[in-house]
């Protein structure tokens, strides 16, 4: 064997990895610069704008003072805060038992319930609102249920918001409830704790971070949502619709910026609360934790099944109603079913273009966004770069989650429409919409990419380096394979969100680049209700198809990657 020392044919050529290292550093810096331009710069432009007057002079809090003097402001703020709070409370009250039923009870058909629960994610936020209008609106089927009240207003906003936010809350709470420690429950049993006491003392504390996180996410999402209050809010004014009034209605950009800052505040507070809560969360799930084993409990299972069925029926009912409404020729006068609304939507070249624009936007966002996120996730998780730079990258990637879409969109207007900005040429282009959408949804995919790679020991990279494989080569040979299914999930996430988003694009589109979700909002303002619903349903169908494709690709990849299966 000692002869193996002299084998010229196996000599590894000395590879200069310095050039590759420099290129990689340049890529990192480029990515940081891109995120700065796409996220920080627009927000800064908006913040600055709120302190400037129309001529660009600094006037301190002058705009804020002017806004406070506006009539109806107090009402708008009060409406936003109260409606968001009520929606959050209701959402959590439904989401927690639902997540509990999925993870801590023994009901049948869990897979089916989970899939249906996710359905609202695949539709623009206005779709549940349409369903509710068909059911409870002025010509609604079940209008009598409201006993004289109207769906247009607080009731509609809260109901539709709860519907829209439910999947997000359930997902977050599921993450908290899925990881429990059986040993705690056994200890509680040994100490003869009653089921109620066990719930309060063991189950609730173990997911208090998930509860706080879900609460923050839902509150901010409802507070800053634009689509639902526009469609079903009636005369109830909230901050989100107010920003639109100021900017589009009155071209008062400075006041619009002020409202943007106001919308930013709860998001920043929620982000701070989230960070604090995470820090105080003790590690309840360690490597030694034992997964929770369910005890047989018939009454618990029956109660859970009833709840889950009710929620599922409600979801299917609302969405089904919306679909039904879209098939009706002219509600409520001509209830004949037909594809009339769909034909009108697709034959009108302007409307058809909105659909193709949506597809272009969603596909480009998914394609470009996945590449960017894969790079930033890779750079952050592999620790192959100077710590300061990767921390900056991670920090930048986390910012979008605290910025509401409306605020970001308005910031883009101020930053990219400014003639002094060399990037001004992007104004009104699809490229700008793509950039804004990628920036808007950057955080979660980035975290998914980091999460997908962080499980791989750093020592794997070191072993590869000792075998003369530099960071780029190792990335190509090892990391991409490990990250495969996650990349598919990221692409699906970006596609669906780009198809259904309204808020960020509200100020950026023009006649050429208008997307379907925005067309839906426009059409409800013009009372082409059936067509709006049809378009929203079409968007949902596209998202369904995309999700099906995502699942198919995912299982294909996992099947080809035989190494993922644990066999001993």
């Amino acid at each position, binding site marked *: 064997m000692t002869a193996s020392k002299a084998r010229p044919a196996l000599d590894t050529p000395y590879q200069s*990895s310095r050039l590759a290292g420099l290129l990689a550093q340049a890529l990192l810096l480029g990515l940081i610069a891109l995120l700065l331009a796409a996220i920080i710069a627009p927000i800064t432009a908006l913040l600055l704008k709120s302190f400037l007057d129309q001529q660009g002079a600094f006037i301190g809090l002058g705009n804020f003072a002017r806004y406070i003097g506006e009539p109806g402001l107090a009402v708008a703020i009060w409406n936003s805060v109260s409606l968001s709070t009520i929606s959050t409370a209701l959402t959590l009250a439904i989401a927690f038992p639902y997540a509990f039923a999925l993870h801590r009870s023994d009901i049948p058909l869990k897979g089916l319930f989970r899939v249906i629960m996710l359905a609202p994610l695949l539709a623009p936020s206005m779709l549940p609102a349409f369903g509710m209008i068909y059911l409870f609106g002025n010509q609604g089927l079940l209008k009598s249920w409201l006993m004289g009240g109207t769906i247009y207003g607080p009731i509609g906003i809260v109901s539709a918001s709860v519907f829209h936010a439910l999947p997000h809350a359930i997902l977050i709470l599921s993450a908290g409830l899925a990881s429990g420690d059986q040993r705690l429950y056994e200890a509680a049993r040994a100490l003869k704790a009653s089921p109620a006491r066990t719930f309060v003392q063991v189950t609730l504390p173990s997911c208090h971070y998930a509860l706080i996180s879900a609460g923050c996410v839902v509150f901010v999402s409802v507070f800053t949502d634009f689509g639902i209050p526009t469609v079903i809010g009636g005369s109830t004014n909230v901050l989100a619709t107010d920003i639109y009034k100021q900017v589009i209605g009155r071209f008062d950009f400075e006041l619009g910026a002020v409202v943007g800052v106001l919308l930013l505040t709860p998001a920043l507070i929620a982000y701070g609360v989230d960070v604090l809560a995470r820090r105080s969360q003790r590690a309840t799930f360690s490597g030694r934790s034992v997964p929770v084993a369910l005890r047989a409990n018939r009454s618990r299972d029956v109660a859970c099944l009833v709840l889950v069925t009710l929620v599922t029926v409600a979801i299917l009912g609302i969405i089904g109603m919306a679909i039904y409404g879209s098939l009706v020729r002219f509600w409520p006068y001509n209830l004949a079913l037909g594809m009339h609304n769909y034909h009108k939507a697709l034959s009108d070249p302007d409307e058809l273009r909105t659909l193709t624009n949506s597809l272009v936007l969603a596909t480009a966002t998914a394609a470009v966004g996945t590449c960017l996120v894969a790079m930033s996730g890779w750079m952050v998780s592999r620790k192959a770069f100077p710590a300061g730079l990767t921390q900056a990258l991670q920090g930048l990637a986390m910012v979008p989650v605290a910025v509401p879409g409306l605020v970001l969109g308005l910031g883009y207007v101020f930053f990219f429409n400014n003639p002094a900005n060399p990037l001004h040429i992007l104004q009104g282009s699809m490229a700008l919409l793509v950039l804004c959408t990628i920036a808007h949804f950057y955080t979660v995919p980035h975290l998914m990419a980091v999460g997908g790679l962080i499980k791989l020991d750093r020592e794997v990279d070191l072993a590869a380096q000792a075998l003369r494989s530099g960071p780029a080569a190792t990335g190509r040979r090892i990391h991409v394979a490990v990250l495969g299914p996650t990349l598919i999930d990221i692409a699906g996430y970006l596609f669906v969100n780009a198809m259904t988003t309204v808020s960020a694009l509200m100020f950026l589109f023009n006649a050429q680049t208008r997307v379907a979700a925005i067309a839906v909002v426009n059409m409800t303002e013009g009372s082409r209700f059936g067509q709006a619903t049809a378009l929203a349903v079409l968007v949902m169908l596209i998202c369904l198809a995309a999700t099906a494709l995502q699942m198919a690709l995912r299982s294909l990849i996992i099947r080809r990657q035989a190494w993922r299966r644990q066999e001993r």
Partner: protein
Amino acid sequence: MNVHQSDTRLQNGATQVAPFLSVGGLSKRFGQSTVVDDVAFEVGRSEFVCVLGPSGCGKTTLLRLIAGFERADKGVIAMNGVDVTTRRPEERDFGIVFQSYALFPNRTVAGNVGFGLEATRASGAQQQARVAELLTLVGLTEHAGKYPSQLSGGQQQRVALARALALSPGLLLLDEPLSALDANVRARLRLELLALQRRVGVTALMVTHDQQEALAVADRIIVMNRGRIVQCGTPRQVFETPADLFVARFMGEMNAFPITGVDHDGVEAGPVRLMLAEASGSLPARAHLCIRPGAVLIGAEAEAAPRPLAARVRQVLYLGDTVRLTLQVGGHEATPVNAEIPSARLPLLPSIGDAVAVAFPAGQVRILGDGA
């Protein structure tokens, strides 16, 4: 050739073979703490050297400095006569095996072993032949198509070893390679590791905190504590003539008594007394008189020794191969003595309270500073 090198080759702890690796004045600080402090040693060609020490002593950092994953603040690292101190890891001639195996999860055993070969100028057939050769060497030929998740810990470690040897490196670095394995697998695998190293003839430097492991496989042991080298020598030297109390206690059980009195006759520490003629050299700071439990004589052997003492049994622990007795020598009840006797010599275990003779052979008593 004996697996265990005899003492004739390496008497004074320094290698007499041409060094492959030589390290001088190596230092590394992380923030305020000096993790590696002025470390210097040599490893001879085809030698198997273990760096031994408790957690936090700097041994893993030392290994990473030699590999190039960390940059030294001060000092020189030379491999095969070439100064590699400023070279990146891929420019140094070594292979490395990690405690966590660090196998590539998406590649088969053959794919892992052949990873480093893929960038070479070797043809596909040559690469395959080399991979087959290595798999035969570690005994994993029939597992060539399996993935790491399908292998046991011991098998994964062997794949890591074969992978590290694929490019025929001049130096094999091992970072606690056996720590993650069960005790019985560990005992078996370390002898396989040693046999492999002898067959291939590669220079090996292994980091471990397990003194049994180091004693079993090393030609020389480098004991580290708090970033510094405390002793460097053969396993026998380090065990039987430790440099200080820290090394003595780290290598195994040790009775240690602080010196209480020095007079014209000799040195006294607890129940142990050493005559001046038997003691040599000056006393180190905070000196102790020390003797291994295995060297303490009891019963008939003690009575035959020069200065037997009377003692009472305070505790009896049956440990399988040996029996550990805790004894209190008359007049020194505050400083009990541990004695370890092979079970075969005690067909009848003594009871607590029994009177027994005990003696401390002068040749086995060491004077050691406490190494603080």
